């Protein structure tokens, strides 16, 4: 089934299926779909080797719109199904599409285990802080006090942090993007794809119908620069200002409280010594960055943590290869007739 002739380069539109996209007009999912298709084109992914798996929810409709293999499964269980796919064929390039309800509520358990096992999956968690497909109930990422059909007096439970959860579960790659950032998001997705193991990208996605402008307090043009920080490995953690001024503020660690705090940069953008340099292999720093919430601190975007470890499916394949004394997947070494005759037997004449 290997292709021998090189394929012609594919454009983003070549990764679109023939199905009509059925999200609400103005939904952030359109932008994410576009970013995903651009990522596929930029990476020249082979559609035949690529599988999009999803659970249930608005986000989980995405596989229908991709001209790859796609499996729209059941609520919350996509990580388990994707794990099975990788167990059977580790060579497949598996993308997992989930949402805040699908991935963190009904499927929180499966997501936790896919992350801690480090199954080689690219997990895109669309977080719109609301249940869209069931018409607007609050979700596990909704902020306290969210008024919804099921919480007319405001929600009481505190929200879960997608990235905090992922780091707690032992994820080796966590990143964050925003649906409309069509330059930054594909770059983040490419990093996630390059990471061997489970990579979780939280994509903040605007639900125009049930939770419009949930992220406006840091995505509005007027405040974006001051309330977003695009982190990059090896670069100082600076943000603010505009194209002309360059960054005007930085992040440093208050060594007394062990919390991050904002400091102004010096004249001409000079970076003080105590401004932190992003180290994406530093899990403690990742935790601090992931937890930042505007307006006190900027929201962290980009690759927040990346510290590769052996992928589960690769290790399973290695165990199998050792057992069959050859490549895996590959021919089986054990002889079944011998197995049936192992142990104590007796002959009846």
């Amino acid at each position, binding site marked *: 089934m290997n292709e021998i002739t090189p394929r012609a380069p594919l454009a983003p539109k070549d990764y679109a299926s023939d199905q009509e996209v059925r999200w609400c007009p103005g939904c952030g999912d359109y932008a994410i779909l576009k970013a995903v298709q651009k990522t596929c084109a930029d990476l020249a992914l082979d559609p035949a080797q690529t599988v999009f798996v999803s659970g249930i929810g608005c986000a989980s409709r995405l596989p229908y719109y991709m001209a790859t293999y*796609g499996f*729209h499964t059941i609520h919350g269980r996509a990580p388990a199904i994707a794990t099975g796919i990788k167990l*059977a064929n580790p060579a497949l390039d598996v993308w997992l599409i989930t949402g805040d309800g699908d991935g963190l509520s009904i499927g929180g*358990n*499966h997501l936790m285990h896919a992350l801690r096992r480090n199954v080689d999956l690219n997990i895109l968690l669309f977080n719109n802080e609301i249940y869209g497909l069931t018409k607007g109930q609050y979700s596990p990422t909704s902020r306290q006090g969210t008024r919804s059909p099921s919480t007319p007096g405001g929600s009481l439970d505190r929200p879960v942090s997608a990235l905090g959860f992922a780091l707690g579960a032992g994820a080796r790659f966590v990143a964050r993007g925003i649906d409309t950032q069509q330059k930054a998001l594909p770059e983040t997705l490419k990093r996630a794809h390059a990471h061997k193991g489970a990579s979780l990208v939280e994509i903040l996605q605007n639900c125009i119908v049930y939770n419009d402008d949930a992220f406006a307090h840091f995505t509005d043009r007027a405040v974006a620069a001051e309330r977003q920080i695009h982190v990059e490995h090896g670069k100082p953690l600076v943000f603010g200002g505009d194209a002309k001024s360059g960054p005007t503020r930085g992040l440093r660690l208050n060594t007394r409280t062990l919390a991050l705090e904002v400091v102004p940069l010096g004249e001409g953008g000079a970076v003080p010594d105590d401004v932190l340099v992003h180290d994406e292999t530093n899990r403690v720093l990742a935790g601090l960055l992931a937890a930042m919430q505007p307006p006190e601190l900027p929201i962290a975007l980009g690759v927040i943590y990346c510290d590769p470890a052996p992928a589960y499916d690769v290790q399973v394949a290695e165990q199998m290869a050792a057992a*069959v004394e050859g490549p895996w997947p590959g021919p089986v070494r054990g002889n*079944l007739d011998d197995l049936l005759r192992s142990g104590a037997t007796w002959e009846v004449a």
Partner: protein
Amino acid sequence: MPDSHEALHDASAPLEAAVVRFAGDSGDGMQLTGGQFALTTALAGNDLATFPDFPAEIRAPAGTTYGVSAFQIRFGSRRIKTIGDQVDVLVVMNPAALKVNLAEVKPGGLIIADRDAFEPRNLGKAGYATNPLEDGSLAGYRVMTVDMTRLTEESVAPFGLGKKAADRCKNMWALGLVYWMFARDRGPTVAWLKAKFASQPELADANIAALNAGHAYAETAELPADVRVYHVEPAQAAPGLYRNVTGTEALAWGLVAGAQLANIGLTFCSYPITPASALLHTLARLKRHGVVTFQAEDEIAAVCAAIGASYAGSLGVTSSSGPGIALKTEALGLAIAVELPLVVVNAQRGGPSTGLPTKTEQSDLFQAVFGRNADAPLAVLAVRSPADAFDCAIEAVRIATKYMTPVMLLTDGYLANAAEPWRIPSMQDYAPFPVRFRTDPEGFHPFVRDPETLARAWAVPGTPGLMHRIGGIERDHDSGNISYDPANHHRMTKVRAAKIDGIANDIPEQTVDQGPTSGKLAVVGWGSTYGPISRAVEDLNAEGHEVAHIHLRHIWPLPRNLGVLLAGYERVLVPEMNNGQLVTLLRAEYLVPAEGVSKVAGRPFKIGELKDALLDALARPPHVTPPHAHADRSQGAAA
């Protein structure tokens, strides 16, 4: 030939069959002892059936009744179909073991007890106010007391073990005694001990010394007059190579065999649950045979990973017991909807809820056949005996891959643990059924069906040109794209049912296991009731009655001739270890006045119970059924 206890009194006649039960603390090694006795008995040419009976608690406090572990074996020179209604020889290592197992012993049966263990502390823990070995309460039995602990300690003294390690050889001492009683060869157990304790030769030597000492004691001591050597002749068996096999082993190997015959990989995804876990353990050791095993985070993840594996071109298999199957239900609906092969093993246990985790039951038939939301048919098979699990597993794989459907394979707690001799088949005897994955993009439509099987093509990710999307939302009958069209949903519902119904044309017609093919009474069974029903029917026919035994492997779809076959009998009786499930299915499907015989006690039917129920049915005129007899909800004829 007398069957057992009567012959135990007869000084000359060989025994046709006997039942021995070893019982002691969880830590007394009763399962190992029983396993060795079973192996030696098989090597002596007897037919046999074994059943371990252990507590749900892992290591209950020593000496307590709830910590008693037992192993029962029935063996004989005739075909052995059950583990026996009553015990001929009970070996007890402490008072608690006697307390728990005494009710199983035949009146006049032999009890061999370690007198040293019947001391005040142990008696108290077992709830005995006085010592039953001395207070006359065992007058209805023959009792042989031996200072087993002391004699064991003396026999292993040369090997310098501590008291605790020395006492752990007690089971071998007891085994030696029982070996003498049934004229068994100690050689295989000696070899086994040497292999087991290869790195601790002093332990091997001590255990062998204890085994020999028990044997020598029996040979030389002044035993009660009616304790002697009993001979059990070899059973008649077809020529061939044999082994003992548990239901779990046969099932595991059958799944591997099925995947090889289908020429695809096997990905087994499971979550620990009693009594299904042993299947995961067995398959986890078969990586060399291409088996990938995955211990998932929960039951749902286990079935979902198996579905993912099937989607990717392997045979996904998951296993559980009733409560776990309940959790898998939604995912089974997905597998039915997207039409992927899947084998689901249900080792049934007592329920509902946690119920009786270590006890057997067959009460998940409704769950298997009907237990999903919406019209969601799948195929259901049931295993009848430990060795039968091998062929059933192969058949499950064949149906799953040929029809692109989940198949539920029902076993139970008894079958999972029980063992019997098995004439080892050769894989050459099985016709391969290789899967043909779709590779041709020309004219590929994901839900276009094979006109004969109604199965859709299996198009696996990684195949160039076949990219497509599937999902749980209703699919167009052709493209597989999302379709909310009313006519399409009606059509798809009908075709999903027709596909499963059509399997009936691809399975053997139902045969009659024994007895007439029409007449007064047919006994219809399924699953592990095979042994007791078969023996009960055989006995009644030998006594001049005319009773047929029909035993189903295919529960859904039912064999295509079953309705006509059942119509040929005046009365149909359905014994089940549930409150009346197959009987309801048969009545619903065929409008036959079938009657149930129900036993829901966490243990198999006894032959005597079934014979009583059959005789009762024979005594009544046809079509006159007692109130509620079809499900026997009022009393349970055999409870």
